[in-house]
């Protein structure tokens, strides 16, 4: 009876309980029942339970062996327990989550000190699989879990910090640097052409599709990453790119616990770049002047105080960054109620002057067990973020563009504004306003009701509120108008949404060996967004930025907008397990989205997965001592994507932008509404193996998958003669094949010393399988210098497409080719007079051909472009794929070493084999604008006179010879290895900690981005590309910080 009871409790509690706590909670519930049973002949025993470092273990279960779990208790907040045991004595089984179980013989009534060893890996951990949980040993899909302990070592401010390098197949790009910025997370590579469609689905405490922007990483109890489609399919729609399930912390049954943490971080400019100094600027000016058709060098007047500075702009614009991070949490529980409350406040002052962000996150989690059958849960979270969003283009990029001899200050000490068309980056940083504050709140209420044994009904509702406000203002000092003019705007946005879910969980075991689980549910959700903006100019006062200050309202930039969408779903799952040896899971989900055509609202998604624990077979018995557990997994699943415009399926007439002669026109937009629009489908096949060696000391997981997207939601160009530019269609397909490997090990484990290691490696190869029209160019397809990408059948996303530079013509006569377009070598006599051509050392007397650009013959000092088309013109037929922005592989190694009270954790991560387009350097070196100074290398190495051998073209030819078109000069290797996180913690021995009335106290030193090995020349090779069709272009970003900090953690 007790055994059955325990099972019931298990299913009751498990749904919203996190893996680490589950067993504990189960035991607690069990104990509550058990202690009510009294015994006649018994004695009292006392004891304490500690870990290897002497810290008390709270809530460890102590059970009298042989009592069938009936007699036992839990340790209190000091790790102590006392227990009635039968007089005759016996054994105590002591266990706690994350520790190995021990059995102790009791002898009389003395106090027993019990030390538990930390367990190495655990197959009994609970994994959240979507509307339910599963033991890790029964999981059939490719799921990786990240624990609170792993996250704790990171001092994470964002989810990206918390997850980077933690799981194979999880590509986390961290934009650390700018206050309030985060980065991007992608699971198993992109599968479609929109960035929204490539983002994973977040499920936070059961709320599907929640925003991960506001999660406080220190509130996270566990993160479960559902990578394969069979695992994600229960979330059908939007799960095409994997699911990240986040479960937040919950209090435990004991006295309230208070946890305080404070961290102060100093941030330094990790990589300072060399810039042309004033002398080099003048050298360049002379070069400009000396050239035919060159621009008048200018702005070097030695008597003009405006042009006689020699600034180190990076020094002037940056500072020591300071970040304070405060955390406080309070948790606990009693018989019927459990709670967890937390507050985090981050005050971040970034590297660039006047860049800052403030962040406040509040969370309250409450579980209330109303009766044996009913449980209520509440999750409330609130986020506030306030930041000054520094304009990188006008600050940090400007520092490289602006000549270093231009004055930053006027003789009277005030800052200059525009000088010769170039902004003063200091003035911009200090005076430009771009304040953005945002409030968001999520309230979640859930009821669980146990109808009968094994059958549970869960229903919940979530309300979401998000409000943002942006105030922009550019004062007169920053104006380029004549006369000077200020301008600004204030924008509001609001997003509200709700989500309702109801589902049934059923589980039953038949004939002991056959266990079945079932799930059937329904969900609906709706989101509504509204926004408004008012723009004005001629503010009468530059400190009052409300729009009553504006002298003129700009109607073209003053408007409001609104949109909404809704989703509804029915879903079900059936699971079967035979003795844990053979496991099967199958799901069906039917999703409806308001975004599709009326006939195609619904999409059906199926999946199936099997797992075989081959180590349970008798023929594997010989390996038992080494191979503790081995499982082979096979899965197939379908998921969907609906990340398109809310109304792409409707032909619409719009207004507000078609004014003429005082009348507001009404017209269809440039995109044609397609009523046949339907779901994009994603099918994924996964084969994986999980191996556990040496009782959990070593674990290996490896997966291979093929992910295919069909009916791609593609913005197809329409013939412009229809009056439209494009139409959203379901056409084309995309395929990603990938391999993942991860390893969990505890190479050393002695009494005092322990070394844990996590390593992972991911390889992804995505190709466009089918594309209507075969190919198209994304980004720059003209003669400009920015990057262009070729998207084509058989190609990869991120294929840079431009012209290959082979060098620079040394002489005018060097532009000479034979009939097959092989280069000829000009020969000159001693006095430099041209004599004729040779080829491979032999005189050449055939026809001589030359290359042209838009009618202009290329000369000495022009770039030698690879003549792909083999004709006399360098034009768009000569483009080729120059490189790819996607890595060959990425991976990470995370080490945690602990010795007594010390623990050292450090993470190396790498991204390897990707190319980047250094558009920041290109923008400096294209000679296009008189007052943008190239990099020193260009100034020194530009072609000057006939005979110069160099790779830098002559400085006056901006765009007559096509030298500045997108070319391979700016393709750089983006590979890097980084020591990304380090934390050294010292935890006071428990005895000492207690003397100062704390449960435990630790101090730590923290560092991030400490060392980076890379050949990439601009600030940093790691950054997010917003558009999956335009990967890897560095336009000059907020520089990354190198952080070092000190922290203190107190636990009462």
């Amino acid at each position: 009876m007790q055994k059955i009871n325990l099972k019931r409790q298990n299913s009751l509690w498990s749904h919203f309980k996190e893996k680490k706590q589950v067993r504990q909670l189960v035991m607690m519930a069990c104990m509550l029942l058990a202690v009510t049973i009294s015994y006649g002949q018994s004695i009292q025993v006392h004891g304490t339970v500690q870990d290897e470092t002497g810290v008390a273990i709270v809530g460890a279960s102590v059970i009298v062996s042989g009592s069938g779990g009936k007699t036992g208790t839990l340790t209190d907040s000091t790790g102590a327990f006392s227990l009635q045991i039968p007089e005759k004595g016996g054994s105590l089984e002591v266990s706690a989550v994350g520790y190995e179980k021990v059995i102790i013989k009791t002898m009389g009534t003395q106090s027993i000190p019990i030390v538990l060893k930390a367990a190495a890996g655990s197959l009994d951990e609970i994994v959240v699989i979507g509307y339910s949980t599963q033991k890790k040993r029964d999981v059939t899909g490719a799921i990786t879990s990240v624990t609170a302990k792993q996250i704790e070592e990171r001092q994470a401010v964002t989810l990206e910090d918390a997850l980077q390098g933690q799981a194979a197949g999880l590509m986390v790009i961290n934009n650390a640097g700018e206050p309030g910025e985060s980065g991007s997370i992608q699971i198993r590579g992109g599968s479609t052409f929109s960035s929204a469609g490539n983002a994973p689905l977040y499920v936070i405490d059961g709320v599907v599709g929640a925003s991960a922007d506001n999660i406080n990483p220190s509130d996270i109890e566990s993160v479960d990453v559902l990578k394969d489609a069979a695992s994600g399919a229960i979330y059908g729609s939007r799960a095409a790119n994997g699911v990240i399930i986040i479960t937040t912390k919950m209090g435990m049954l004991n006295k309230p616990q208070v946890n305080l943490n404070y961290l102060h971080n100093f941030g330094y400019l990790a990589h300072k770049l060399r810039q042309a100094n004033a002398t080099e600027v003048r050298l360049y000016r002379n070069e400009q002047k000396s050239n035919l058709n060159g621009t008048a060098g200018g702005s070097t007047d030695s008597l003009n105080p405006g042009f006689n500075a020699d600034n180190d702009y990076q020094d002037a614009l940056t500072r020591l960054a300071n970040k304070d991070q405060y955390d406080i949490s309070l948790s606990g529980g009693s018989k019927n109620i459990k709670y967890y409350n937390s507050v985090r406040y981050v005050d971040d002052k970034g590297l660039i002057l006047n860049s800052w962000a403030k962040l406040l996150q509040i969370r309250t989690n409450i579980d209330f067990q109303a009766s044996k059958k009913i449980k209520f849960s509440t999750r409330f979270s609130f986020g506030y973020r306030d930041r000054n969003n520094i304009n990188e283009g006008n600050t940090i990029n400007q520092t490289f563009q602006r000549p270093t001899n231009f004055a930053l200050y006027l003789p009277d000490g005030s800052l200059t504004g525009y000088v010769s068309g170039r902004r003063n980056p200091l003035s911009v940083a200090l005076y430009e306003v771009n304040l953005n504050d945002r409030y968001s709140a999520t309230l979640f209420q859930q009821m669980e009701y146990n109808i009968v044994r094994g059958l549970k009904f869960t229903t919940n509702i979530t309300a979401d509120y998000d409000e943002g406000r942006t105030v922009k203002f550019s004062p007169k000092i920053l104006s380029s108008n004549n006369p000077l003019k200020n301008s600004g705007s204030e924008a509001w946005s609001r997003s509200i949404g709700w989500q309702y879910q109801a589902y049934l969980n059923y589980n039953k075991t038949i004939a002991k060996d056959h266990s079945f689980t079932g799930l059937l549910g329904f969900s609906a959700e709706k989101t509504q967004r509204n926004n408004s903006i008012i723009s004005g100019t001629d503010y009468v006062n530059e400190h009052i930025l409300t729009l009553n200050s504006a002298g003129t309202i700009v109607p073209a930039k003053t408007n409001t907008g609104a949109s909404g969408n809704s989703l509804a779903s029915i879903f079900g799952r059936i699971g079967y397990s035979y003795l844990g040896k053979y496991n099967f899971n199958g799901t069906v989900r039917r999703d409806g989205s308001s975004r599709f055509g009326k006939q195609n609202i619904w999409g059906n998604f199926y999946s199936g997965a099997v797992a075989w624990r081959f180590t349970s077979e008798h023929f594997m018995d010989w390996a038992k001592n080494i191979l503790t557990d081995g499982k082979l997994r096979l899965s197939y699943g379908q998921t969907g994507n609906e990340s398109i415009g809310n109304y792409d399926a409707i032909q619409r007439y719009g207004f507000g932008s078609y004014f003429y002669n005082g009348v507001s026109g009404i017209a269809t937009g440039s995109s044609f509404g397609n009523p046949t629009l339907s779901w994009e489908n994603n099918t994924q096949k996964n084969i994986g193996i999980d191996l556990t060696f040496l009782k959990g000391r070593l674990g290996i997981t490896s997966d291979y998958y093929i992910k295919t997207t069909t009916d791609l939601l593609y913005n197809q160009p329409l013939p412009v003669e229809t009056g439209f530019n494009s139409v959203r269609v379901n056409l084309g397909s995309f395929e990603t094949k990938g391999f993942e490997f991860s390893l969990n090990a505890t190479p050393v484990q002695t009494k005092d010393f322990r070394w844990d290691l996590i390593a992972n490696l991911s390889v992804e190869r995505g190709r466009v399988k089918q594309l209507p029209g075969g190919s198209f160019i994304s980004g720059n397809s003209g003669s400009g210098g920015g990057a262009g990408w070729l998207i084509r059948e058989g190609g990869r996303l991120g294929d840079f497409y431009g012209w290959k530079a082979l060098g620079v013509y040394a002489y005018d006569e060097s532009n000479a080719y034979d009939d097959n377009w092989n280069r000829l070598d000009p020969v000159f006599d001693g006095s430099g007079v041209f004599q004729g051509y040779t080829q491979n050392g032999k005189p050449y007397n055939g026809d001589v051909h030359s290359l042209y650009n838009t009618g202009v013959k290329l000369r000495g000092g022009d770039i030698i472009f690879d003549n792909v088309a083999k004709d006399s013109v360098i034009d768009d037929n000569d483009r080729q794929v120059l490189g790819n922005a996607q890595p060959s592989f990425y991976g990470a190694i995370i080490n945690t070493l602990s010795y007594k009270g010390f623990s050292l954790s450090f993470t190396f991560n790498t991204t390897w084999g990707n190319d980047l387009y250094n558009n920041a350097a290109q923008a400096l070196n294209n000679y296009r604008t008189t007052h943008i100074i190239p990099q020193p290398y260009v100034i020194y190495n530009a072609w000057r006179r006939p005979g110069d051998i160099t790779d830098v073209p002559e400085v006056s030819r901006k765009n007559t010879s096509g030298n500045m078109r997108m070319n391979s000069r700016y393709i750089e290797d983006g590979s890097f290895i980084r020591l990304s996180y380090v934390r050294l913690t010292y935890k006071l021995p428990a005895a000492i900690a207690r003397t100062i009335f704390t449960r435990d106290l630790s101090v730590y030193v923290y560092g991030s981005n400490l060392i980076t090995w890379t050949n990439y020349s601009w600030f940093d090779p790691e950054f997010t590309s917003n558009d999956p069709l335009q990967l890897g272009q560095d336009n000059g970003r907020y520089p990354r910080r190198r952080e070092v900090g000190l922290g203190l953690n107190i636990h009462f």
Partner: protein
Amino acid sequence: MKQLFFASMAILLMGAMGCNKFLNEQPQTEIGETEFWRSEADIQSGMAAIYDGFQDCFGNDYVLWGDARTDEVWRNQYGVDDHVLNALSATSSGTSWANFYEVINRANVAIKNIPLVKAKYVPGMDQAVLNHYLSQAYGARAFAYYWIVRLWGAAPLWTAPYENINEDPDRPRTEAAVILDTVYADLQKAVALSDPKSGNVFEITTGALYAMLMDVSMWKKDYGSALQSFDKLMALNKYSIEPTATWKNLFIDPRSTKGAIWSLDWDWTVDGGASISALIGAGDTNSDFAVEDSVWNYFTQHPMDIRGAQTIDFDVTNHDKFNKFYPKSVGKQVYPNHKEANVLFPLYRLADLFLLRAEIANQQNDPATALQYLNIIHERAGLTAYFATDFPSKATMENAILEERKLELYMEAKRWFDLVRTGKVVEVMDPVLKARQALRMSPEIGFGDKRKILWPINRNVLNANIKLEQNPPY
């Protein structure tokens, strides 16, 4: 088991309840196609959208189409060689006809729906008012096709809106002559429907339609028809040559003049700035184009020609600021930022037609009339009249008229079409291009292949329609 069954049924029932209705989301800032074209106000909005399409067409590109390839301009350091060195390619700016087809589609939608407004929703609507709207839609469609056929030659012909995803959107090019016939037929239909008393200078009025008819006839070298259209235009008694003193008003306040026939309205506060200003003169950026030396020299050497100082900025040493479309400042000329520039581009004005009238006379061997019309414009510019003896031949008269057109209509997108129409592209541009090629140290081939008179079709436009073929030799 019973509980399981009932609970499951309950879940499924909840899922099935009213889902399709729940999932019916309608746009909140736009309207569906069935909710439009129901009132006269809707028609007015539909018409505004057509003209707005012309703003898209000409707001950035008219200088490229009508002036950049001629002896009016040279480029400065921020421009490109494509237009000024006859080196266009499928990626050059100005090679897309998309904006014209945007106008055509909006006009087609209007032509289809305007009659339905009366038939279905407003039976009492005055037929004459409705006809005048229709006439503008026909006129707009004709005008857009006229530009297309002059720039690219043959082009796909759409005379009904594209409304159904199942309709094949790819159409091959229709012969230039057929397009031109459609243009002419549309214009005649438009004239018949239009009300001479309606409209203003920013709209397609009866006058504008006659101007278009005259222009098209000139292009077809049908001088008789051109003359008829001119006479009908003058018979409207609406237009007269603007006096010398207020010549500038034709460009900055056409409504106040009697010389402007059809100008493009612009209001940057609602439409954003006319981006053409960034090519020819804006306060916050350098221009792409500079005044060709021949023009610069003529105007600086003939200060009595009142057009010079009101057309180009003599104070700018780079020769790259064109002030024609901005009010004259006191002292140094002030240019608006390109995002705040209004350019009231004159599509037709009387001086244009008077000079065409002179051409007709010259072609009809009536040099006296030709001289008369030429001198009206010439003298208006503050210059002394030509004598008949100045032009001993038909050819010299033609050249004088074209030269007058170049100066009078400078940067109004007329010169290129004058050269093409009169077959003078190679004759005029060869020496200019040779000099420029020499400057680039490239072989002096002049204009080169005459097929390059037609523009290339933009690469993206070609790619989007599988049935399109590029103009040779591009």
